[in-house]
């Protein structure tokens, strides 16, 4: 009887360990703490696409169109795409705590900060990747400046090179995110 209990306990531990591990290494970033910014923002982009919707979208992407084919290939293994972007009309509408609520989730051992660019003029841009073995299991981008705060989270294997080359090919109107700042100095 005692032996049976021990076996059950070990089997249970073996069952629980991967669940706990999966829980700790979740590549999905929780952005619920940013909900309150939507009321202050002049423009909000909120994208939540899970695997099912990605598969649905993939069906509509044409194999004949080169751009759409690229996108189809890119999203083939992706399990989720989540974006929260806020554009503000005035400075200081979000707090450092808002940024920290996202950044703190990326401090785990699985996430690696790939890029961190900070400047007073252009704000801060951080790129994180989640490594699962030798493969990229997720991507997170935090972009913040005086009047913009954006969090991009891609769950699943993503080809970063391919993704960065997609800009301008997707047939989607320009978002104008970079051009929100006054460019008076440039014109001069």
């Amino acid at each position, binding site marked *: 009887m005692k032996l049976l209990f021990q076996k059950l306990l070990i089997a249970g531990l073996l069952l629980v360990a991967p*669940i706990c591990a999966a829980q700790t290494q979740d590549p999905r970033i929780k952005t619920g703490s940013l909900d309150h910014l939507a009321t202050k923002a002049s423009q909000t*982009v909120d*994208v939540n696409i899970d695997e099912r919707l*990605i598969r649905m979208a993939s069906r509509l992407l044409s194999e004949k169109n080169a751009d759409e084919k690229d996108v189809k290939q890119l999203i083939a293994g992706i399990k989720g795409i989540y974006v929260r972007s806020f554009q503000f009309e005035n400075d200081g509408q979000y707090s450092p705590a808002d940024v920290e609520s996202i950044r703190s989730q990326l401090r785990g051992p699985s996430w690696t900060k790939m*890029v961190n660019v900070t400047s007073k003029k252009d704000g801060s841009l951080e790129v994180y990747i989640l490594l699962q073995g030798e493969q990229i299991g997720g991507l997170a*981008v935090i972009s913040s400046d005086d009047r913009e705060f954006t969090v991009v989270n891609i769950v699943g294997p993503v080809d*970063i090179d391919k993704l*960065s080359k997609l800009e301008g090919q997707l047939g989607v109107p320009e978002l104008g995110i970079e051009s929100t700042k006054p460019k008076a100095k440039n014109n001069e």
Partner: protein
Amino acid sequence: MNEEYLWDKSGEPDPEVQELEEILAPLRYQPKPLELPAPRRNNYLLWAIAASLLIALMAGSLWLKFRSQQPVQQEQAKSFPSVPSVFKEQPKNTDPPKTNPPRKRNRKSINQREHEEALAAKQQVMLALRLASEKLKLAQRRTQAPSPNQIKNQHRVG
């Protein structure tokens, strides 16, 4: 020999008997409480508690996992209307023909709904990828950008 002493310790004791008594004195019966061997400790209760805790932990983990997935679905439902209208393609022929009989129209409307959902999902994917791509490219540009000093020097040379 006084036999009375042997019976009830009365009378005069015999020296030999007295000597024997002294020799055997340590082996005399001494009244003390009965000491039973300690019962074997039963660990079943501990194991049962451990197993219960484990089951509770498993159930908790599964519940957490389930709960973390649920808000995503709820958010999806919320998020669709928030996509700027600029990024929404106007689906072609979305309205079912009015002349169709109710059954066909119902079936078609389901397909239509799926198609619309897929179309919205496609737009959202495109939008999200565009944003992600834009940010990555920006990061690339910023990390590869020459320092202001370098630009100054180039300007002087030029």
